[in-house]
C-alpha cells in the first residue's frame, strides 16, 4: 500500500543509459570552429569569423551547416511531424494548442475536416460553433503543416488518421527521446494503440480502428478491464524507459512490456525505482542480443 524508501536505497537511473560519451559536446561560448565557409545553424553564433555555441549540447553537421542540438529543449517542430496537442484556447477561426513547443501552436479552422466532407463550405456559423468541435482541454493528433516566421507551428488534421483523441492516457516525455520513424501510429500486439508524438507527447489508448478515427466524436463508454491493464502497463513502461533516458519507439516499448510480464512484475511495481532500472537493463540486454 505504501512504499517509503530512503534516498540512499534508490538506484541511479543513469547507470542504464548508454555510457559511450557523445563525440562533440559543447557548452555556451565554446569555440566550434575557426574555419570559415560554414553556415551558422541553430544554437550557434558568429563572432570574429569564428563559430561559437550558444547552447549546451551536441554539435551536428549537415554539409556546410553547423548547428548545436541542445541537450534539453522544448519541441522544435519540423514540417510533416506527427504531434499531439492540447487545446488551450478557442479564438477566432483558430484553436491554440499546447504542443510543448516554445510558442503555442495553431490549428486553423480551415485546416480541419469538419463533419460533412471535403467540399463543405465553411460558414460563419462554423466559426461560432468551434467550441462544439474542439474545446479547451481536448487532445488532438495532428501534423505540422507549416512553421510561421516567429517559430510557431501551424498544424492540420486533414487526414483520417488525425483528429480528436478519445479515452486513454497521455504521457509527456522529452521530445529528444522519441525516435523518428515512418509511422508514429502503432497498434501494439498487447491490445492497445500508441501514438508517439514527435513533440514528446505519447498517447496510449484502446486499439484504434481505422474507420472511426478522424472525427470529433469521443467514445465515453467504459473501456474493458483487459484493455485498461494493457494501457496502464504500457504507460508505466514508457515512463520507466523515459526516466532511464532510453529511446522510445514501438520495439523498445514492446520489449519493455514483454520484459515486465516475463519478470512477473505487477503493473504498479513499475513505479518503483529499482524495478524501473531493472526493466531498462533488460531492454538494453535484449537489444544487445538482437545486434549479435
Amino acid at each position, binding site marked *: 500500500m505504501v512504499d517509503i524508501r530512503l534516498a540512499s536505497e534508490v538506484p541511479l537511473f543513469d547507470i542504464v543509459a548508454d555510457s559511450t560519451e557523445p563525440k562533440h559536446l559543447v557548452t555556451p561560448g565554446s569555440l566550434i570552429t575557426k574555419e570559415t565557409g560554414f553556415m551558422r545553424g541553430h544554437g550557434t553564433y558568429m563572432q570574429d569569423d569564428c563559430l561559437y555555441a550558444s547552447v549546451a549540447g551536441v554539435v551536428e553537421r549537415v554539409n556546410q551547416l553547423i548547428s548545436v542540438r541542445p541537450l534539453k529543449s522544448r519541441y522544435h517542430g519540423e514540417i510533416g511531424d506527427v504531434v499531439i496537442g492540447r487545446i488551450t*484556447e478557442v*479564438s477566432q477561426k483558430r484553436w491554440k494548442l499546447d504542443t510543448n513547443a516554445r510558442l503555442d501552436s495553431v490549428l486553423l479552422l480551415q485546416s480541419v475536416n469538419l463533419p460533412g466532407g471535403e467540399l463543405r463550405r465553411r460558414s460563419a456559423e462554423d466559426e461560432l460553433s468551434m467550441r462544439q468541435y474542439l474545446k479547451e482541454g481536448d487532445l488532438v493528433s495532428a501534423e505540422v503543416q507549416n512553421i510561421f516566421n516567429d517559430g510557431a507551428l501551424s498544424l492540420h488534421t486533414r487526414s483520417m488518421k488525425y483528429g480528436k483523441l478519445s479515452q486513454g492516457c497521455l504521457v509527456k516525455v522529452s521530445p529528444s527521446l522519441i525516435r523518428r520513424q515512418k509511422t508514429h501510429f502503432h497498434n501494439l500486439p498487447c491490445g492497445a494503440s500508441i501514438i508517439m508524438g514527435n513533440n514528446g507527447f505519447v498517447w496510449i489508448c484502446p486499439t484504434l480502428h481505422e474507420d472511426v478515427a478522424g472525427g470529433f466524436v469521443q467514445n465515453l463508454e467504459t473501456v474493458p478491464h483487459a484493455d485498461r491493464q494493457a494501457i496502464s502497463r504500457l504507460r508505466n513502461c514508457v515512463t520507466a524507459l523515459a526516466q532511464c533516458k532510453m529511446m522510445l519507439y514501438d520495439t523498445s516499448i514492446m520489449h519493455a512490456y514483454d520484459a515486465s510480464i516475463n519478470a512477473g512484475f505487477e503493473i504498479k511495481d513499475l513505479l518503483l525505482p529499482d524495478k524501473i532500472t531493472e526493466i531498462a537493463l533488460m531492454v538494453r540486454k535484449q537489444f544487445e542480443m538482437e545486434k549479435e
Partner: protein
Amino acid sequence: MTSYENSTNTESKCIISTPGQRLCLAEDKYIGGVGTYTRQGYIMSCLAGIVKITAQPDKRILVEVRSGKEQTVVPSAGDIVTARITQVNPRWARCAILCVKEMVLAEPFRGQLRKEDVRATEKDRVEMYKCFRPNDIILARVLSLGDAHSYVLSTAENELGVVIAYSEEGTPMVPVGWQEMQCPKTYVKEMRKVAKVSPEIISNENNKEAAN
C-alpha cells in the same frame, strides 16, 4: 401535481417554493422551466419564489419558479441586449452591456462588436467610424460568450444597431434612413448603422431611459 412538501399556504392561491424543494415528478407531462432543475426523477426548485404552472399548447404542463425580485441575469448567446458604445477603432467597437432583454443589469458587462458582425451584407465595406460613435446606445444580439474580456455581439440584423445617438451638438438625433441620422437642431447628418425600430420597442427604450 401530486406532491408538495412543506407547502403551508395552499389556501392563498400561490405556492411559494424554496431552493431544493421537490415540485413534481419529472414525467413526460411536466416540463421544468425557469428556476427549476431536475434531479433523481423530480423537478426541483432552485429559487425562492412563486411556483407558476402553465399549460402548454401541446397539453404538457410547464412548471416554473419566479422569484419576486428581478431574475438573476447574465447575457447568454442569442439574447438581445442594450449596450452603450465605449470605444471604436477600425476593427471593432467596445461597449458596455446595460440591459439583457427587458432586464436592467445592476452592473454592466463588457462586450465587443467586431467589424464583420456589424451588418449582414457587404461586410467588407463596413467602416466602423461610420457605424458607431462612443456613447451611442445600440441594440445587439449576443453571438457567443467570447473570451475572458468580453461577450461577442452582432448587429447584423435590420432591427439591430444604433437606437439612440447624440449629435456633436448634443441633441438626440432622428434616423433618416438605415445609414444616417440627423440632428433636429443643426440638421447635420451623421453616419450610423441605424436599427429599424418597431414602435413598441421605442416606447420600451424610452421607459428604460427614464428609469436610468
